[in-house]
């Protein structure tokens, strides 16, 4: 499916912001797709990891924030250890999550976790989930 990008959709300071938070330069990426091939959550993602880097490069803030991709990334670092260009994609995913979370918007509402789940949930699950998915 062709992707049409008009100038009005490009958010230039988004690119800068993601680079600033992640400390990564997207020019490293050669779009080989190794990250998408290895990602254990890739099948469930609306934008693949490779696609996410491309869309970030093009300043496609709305497409990225509307997709479930960064919220499904569990920072497993499988992509990082295999990336032939050494791009730290987990840091890019974190930066995009942070852009939403820093507007005080939660991805997960802690009070909506069902009581029956809370009973058995180990602290490590809650701490890590709240760190990644709440503002």
């Amino acid at each position, binding site marked *: 499916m062709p992707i049409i990008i008009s100038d009005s959709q490009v958010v230039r300071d988004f690119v800068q912001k993601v680079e*600033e*938070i*992640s*400390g990564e330069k997207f020019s490293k990426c050669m779009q080989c797709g190794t990250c998408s091939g290895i990602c*254990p*959550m890739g*099948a*469930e993602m609306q934008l693949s990891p490779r696609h996410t880097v491309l869309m970030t490069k093009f300043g496609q803030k709305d497409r990225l924030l509307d997709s*479930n991709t960064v*919220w*499904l990334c*569990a*920072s*497993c*670092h*499988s992509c*990082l*250890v*295999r990336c032939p260009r050494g791009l*730290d994609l*987990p*840091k890019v*995913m*974190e*930066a995009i999550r*942070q852009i939403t979370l820093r507007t005080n918007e939660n*991805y*997960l509402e802690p009070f909506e*976790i069902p009581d029956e*789940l809370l009973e*058995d*949930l*180990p*602290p*490590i*699950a*809650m*701490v*890590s*989930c709240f*760190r*990644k*998915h709440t503002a």
Partner: protein
Amino acid sequence: MTLGYYPGCTLKSHARNLEDSAIEALKVLGVETVELERWNCCGAVYSLADDDLIHQLAPVRDLIRAKDMGLDKVMTLCSMCYNTLARANLLMRNDEAKRKTLNDFMEEESDYAGEVEVIHLLQFLKNDIGWDKLKAAVKVPLKDLNLSPYYGCTLTRPLEVSIDEAVSPTIFKEFIEALGGTYIHSDHSAECCSSYQMISNPEAAIEAASKVVRSAEDQGADALALSCPLCEYNLGKRQVDILKKHDDLKPLPTFYFSQLLAVALGVDPLICRFELNPTASLELLEEKGVVEKVSA
């Protein structure tokens, strides 16, 4: 020999089976663990945002506790604690500007520059005890037990904190073989089990976790051996949800690696707290004659 030890939050509640069995097993090997004073939660995940230093304070404070106690090394049992502490340690060693900001912020604490070494128990067993010595100490070999190790993500990634070769690690295989067990290879031994996504995105998480169970079962594993309480939650406690969705899978027992170590070294199974594992786990050990049947 004494060994500095950082437990982390889950080992004092849901994962007592991981902690108690490890401490008793180490005693058998002549190692006394010294728990860090006033330790706090490490934060469970390492902060990946370059401009977020506030979340580095928790793991760094733990490392300062270790330094203040005169320890040169601190051992962890939980994979996520290992990863978070080891990465925060490297940050303090290698990033001069951030080290200064963090030390200045914590003016009440001793300055820290990564002096302590963070290790995981598997590394300690390999490098400080040695597989031959461990093999010689085994009283109840885990014979007839087909064990598939599950490294998960945080023991071997990223490269700079990997406890072994990151893409094809063998440390867990060597551990299982030293205990007399049979190592079962699984293609998913280092694939993510979905981590905290089991709370936020349970459907996708169950799919990811089911692949880990399926891969081990397909290769003929009797059980999974693991080191992370979050992996144990996803693959052990929540296995009931995996089996509901994938009814061709059989129940697969799970063990913390430290429980296997303890029973092999002859520690009383009651100390290993198998009641916190899935029911099938203790039953498997009884069936294989590794522990005596208590239910009979």
